C-alpha cells in the first residue's frame, strides 16, 4: 500500500525537516548574502508562495541551479527544482535582451557560424567587450567561446555512408557547443566509437536542450524545444538505437528538467539516453576492448561538473580515465566552478562567479595537471579562463590515447 500516495508534495517539499544541511553546500550563499539560500528559497519559501504568490522573492534569480542542495539533502527534497519552478511560475518579469541572447545558444550559433573568423575576432576585442558590458551588461572580463567555421552536423553528414557501415549504430545528441563552437569533441567521440565498432548518426533534427532558456525566464520556448527533442530522440530509440551525449548539462536537462520543471514526459527515452562515457565504460566492461598508444602519458585532474554530480554518473568518466594506460589520475574535490552556464556571463554575477570557483582553481594549480578533464563545456570556459590550464572532455582524452 502506498501510504504517501495522497500526501506527496510538489518536489517533495513537505519532506524538508529544516536540518539546514543544504545551506552548508550552497556555493552562492558563500559569496552572495542577498541570496536567501536554498532552504529559505526552496521548501520554506514554497509554503509562503502557496499561501500567496506575493511572497515570491526575486532574489531567487541568484540560484545557480547547480543542484548541490539536492545532492546534499538527506530527505530527498528537490530543492533546486522547487526554486526553478517557482521562478517559472511566479516570475512575471520579461527576460532582458541580454538574457534572451545568452539563452538562445543554437540561434546565435547558426547566425555566427558562417562568419566565424570575423565573429571570433570581434568578440575577442577589448572594445567589443567594453561595448557589450556597457550596453548589455555582459561582463567585459569574460572570454567568449569561439565559433567554428563548419558545423559538426555538416562534418558528420558527409560521413553518413561510412558511419552506416558499422555493425552497431547509435545516435548522438551533440548539443549547441559541439555543433557551433567545438566540433572536435564530436569528431573525437566518432573516433572512439568507431574503434569499438559503433557508427554514429545524427538525430532527425535536434534543437538546443533549452537549459539556458529555463534559467533565463524563457520556459515556453524551452518547453517547445523539449517536446521537439523528446520526439526526435524517441524516433531513434524506436529504431533500436541508444542516444549518446557528451555534455552533462544537456543530459541532466533532457533526463530530469524536462519532466520535473517543464512537465514534458520523457519516460519513453529516459533509459536509452546515456552519457557517452557510461556507454563506453559499459561496453568495455562487457568485454569490448580498445587499443591504446603504448607511449601515452598524461597527468589528468578530473573535475566532476555539478550536473554530472547530480546525475550520479561522474563515476563512469572517472573509471574510464583510470582505465587508460599512462594516465596519472587525480580526482578534484567536489566543488562548483562558478560559471553555471550563462550565470557567470552576467555583469551582476561575475564577481560571485569567480569567488565561487576560487577554491577549485587553487586546487587545480596545486595539482598542476597537464590537462583538466571535465564533461561540461561551460566549466571548460570558466576553468581555462581562470586558471590557464587546458580543459578537455574525457572523450577527447580517450581519443588522444587511442592507437591509430
Amino acid at each position: 500500500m502506498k501510504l504517501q500516495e495522497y500526501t506527496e508534495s510538489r518536489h517533495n517539499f513537505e519532506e524538508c525537516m529544516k536540518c539546514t544541511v543544504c545551506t552548508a553546500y550552497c556555493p552562492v550563499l558563500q559569496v552572495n548574502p542577498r541570496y536567501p539560500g536554498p532552504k529559505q528559497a526552496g521548501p520554506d519559501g514554497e509554503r509562503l508562495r502557496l499561501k500567496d504568490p506575493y511572497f515570491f522573492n526575486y532574489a531567487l534569480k541568484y540560484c545557480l541551479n547547480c543542484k548541490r542542495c539536492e545532492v546534499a539533502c538527506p530527505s530527498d527534497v528537490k530543492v533546486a527544482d522547487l526554486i526553478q519552478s517557482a521562478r517559472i511560475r511566479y516570475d512575471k518579469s520579461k527576460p532582458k535582451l541580454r538574457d534572451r541572447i545568452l539563452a538562445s545558444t543554437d540561434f546565435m550559433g547558426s547566425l555566427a557560424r558562417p562568419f566565424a573568423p570575423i565573429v571570433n575576432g570581434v568578440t575577442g576585442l577589448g572594445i567589443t567587450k567594453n561595448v557589450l558590458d556597457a550596453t548589455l551588461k555582459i561582463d567585459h572580463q569574460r572570454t567568449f567561446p569561439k565559433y567554428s567555421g563548419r558545423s559538426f552536423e555538416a562534418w558528420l553528414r558527409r560521413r553518413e555512408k561510412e558511419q552506416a557501415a558499422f555493425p552497431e549504430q547509435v545516435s548522438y545528441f551533440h548539443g549547441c557547443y559541439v555543433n557551433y563552437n567545438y566540433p572536435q569533441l564530436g569528431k573525437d567521440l566518432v573516433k572512439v566509437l568507431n574503434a569499438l565498432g559503433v557508427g554514429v548518426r545524427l538525430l532527425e533534427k535536434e534543437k538546443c536542450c533549452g537549459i539556458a532558456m529555463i534559467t533565463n525566464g524563457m520556459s515556453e520556448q524551452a518547453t517547445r524545444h523539449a517536446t521537439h527533442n523528446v520526439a526526435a530522440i524517441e524516433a531513434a530509440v524506436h529504431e533500436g538505437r541508444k542516444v549518446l551525449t557528451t555534455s552533462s548539462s544537456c543530459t541532466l536537462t533532457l533526463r530530469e528538467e524536462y519532466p520535473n520543471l517543464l512537465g514534458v514526459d520523457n519516460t519513453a527515452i529516459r533509459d536509452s539516453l546515456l552519457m557517452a562515457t557510461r556507454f563506453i565504460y559499459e561496453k568495455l566492461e562487457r568485454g569490448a576492448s580498445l587499443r591504446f598508444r603504448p607511449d601515452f602519458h598524461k597527468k589528468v585532474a578530473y573535475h566532476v561538473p555539478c550536473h554530472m554530480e547530480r546525475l550520479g554518473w561522474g563515476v563512469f568518466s572517472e573509471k574510464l580515465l583510470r582505465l587508460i594506460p599512462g594516465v596519472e589520475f587525480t580526482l578534484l574535490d567536489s566543488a562548483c566552478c562558478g560559471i553555471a552556464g550563462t550565470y557567470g556571463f552576467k555583469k551582476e554575477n561575475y564577481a560571485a562567479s569567480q569567488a565561487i570557483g576560487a577554491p577549485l582553481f587553487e586546487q587545480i594549480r596545486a595539482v598542476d595537471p597537464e590537462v583538466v578533464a571535465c564533461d561540461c563545456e561551460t566549466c571548460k570556459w570558466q576553468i581555462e579562463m581562470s586558471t590557464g590550464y587546458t580543459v578537455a572532455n574525457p572523450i577527447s582524452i580517450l581519443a588522444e590515447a587511442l592507437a591509430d
Partner: protein
Amino acid sequence: MKFNTVIIGGGLAGLVAGISLQKAGQNTAIISSGQNALHFFSGTFESMEEPSQQLAELFSEAGIRTHYQAGVRLMPLGTFRPAALSLEDISLFPTSHFGKKVLIVNFLGYHDFFSSFLAEGLEKQGMSCRIHQLKLAQLEWLEQSPSEMRSVQIARIMDRIWDVVVQEVRVLLKDEDTVVLPQVFGLQDISVPGRIRQGIPAQVVFAGTLPPSVPGIRTQMLLKRRYELLGGTYLAGDEATGAHVHEGVVHSIVTKNLDSHFLEAGHFILASGGFFSKGLRSNPFQIQEPVFGLDVVQAADRSDWYQPDFMQEQPYMSFGVQTDAQLHAVRDGQALKNLFAVGSILGGTRPEMGTAAGLAIRSALAAVDQILRRS
C-alpha cells in the same frame, strides 16, 4: 561495476569501513543518499574507549585531530555529559567545575548559540559568568540575510579572520580564567581552533551550536577526502533502491542514479542509518528496512512504539534491523552470509544516550575485520 565490497551509507560508519577496506587493498564503493548525521556531530565519540592503534592511525592519516581523557564535556545548554574520545576542539574536564570566572563571547546577530543558558548552567556549578556580544565588521555582510547567519557561514569567514577574534577577546578579557566561544572555527583550516587557544591568555572552551556542526562537517570532508585519495568510489546523492539476493547471498545493489547498471560485490555493508537517514522507514503499521526488507526488531502494536510523555524514553528509538552475533543482517529469519549491518540501523541500541558515534565506529570495524579475514 564490480567491487570487493559495496557500502550503503556515507556517514561515519560507512566512511570508517570504506577507508579501512581501501587501506587493506580492497576496491570499494560507498552509496550515499544525501548528507549524514556527522552534520549534527557533537565532536565526542561517546561510548568509545581509548582508540585502538588502527583507529588512531585512521584518524591521523585523514587529518582528524582527536584526544582522549575520561571526564566530562560542556553541552550547548550549559549541562555536562561524560565524555572521553573527542575531537581536539572539544575540551574534556575531570569535573564539571572547570573554572572560576568565565567570559562567554557570542557574535552579534548569531542566534544559534545560547549564551544565557550556558551562563545559567555554569553559574549552577559555582562559576561566575559575563556575556559579551562581539560586533565584527567582517560579519556584517552576513546580516543582510539574517536567516542564513549560521555556523557554517560564520566559520567560512573565521577561517580567514580568526586572528581578529583573538585580538578582540584579548581586549575584552578582564580577570576571567576561561573564555567560552561558539564552535564555529576550523571548517577548512583545521589549525584555527588551536591557534585561538594559543592566542588567548585564558582557558578556551568551544561550546556547541545549533546545526550544522562545524567540527562535524569538517570531519565528514576529511574522511571523504581520505577515502577518495585511497581510490574509493563515493557515489554522492545516489540511493540504494533494491538488491539481488539469491540463497542467502547478496549479489548486487540497484541504485536510483545508475538504474540498470548494478553494483556487484563479494561483501556488502549496510550503514544506512536510522529514521533520519531513511535507513529505517515507518508507516502507521510497521517499521521497514527499505533496501533488503530485513527483519526489524520492533513492538508489534503501534501504541507500544512511543510514550505519550515526550521526555520519557521512547521505545521506537531502539528499533532496528536484526543481526546475528557476527552482525550478519537477518531476513525472514535467515542470516545473509555476506551482508553486515553497522551503525545506527542496528536494533537494540539507544542513540538518544549519545552512543551513536561510538557504535558506528565499533560496528564498522568489526564488520571490516570479518570481511578481511574471509577474503
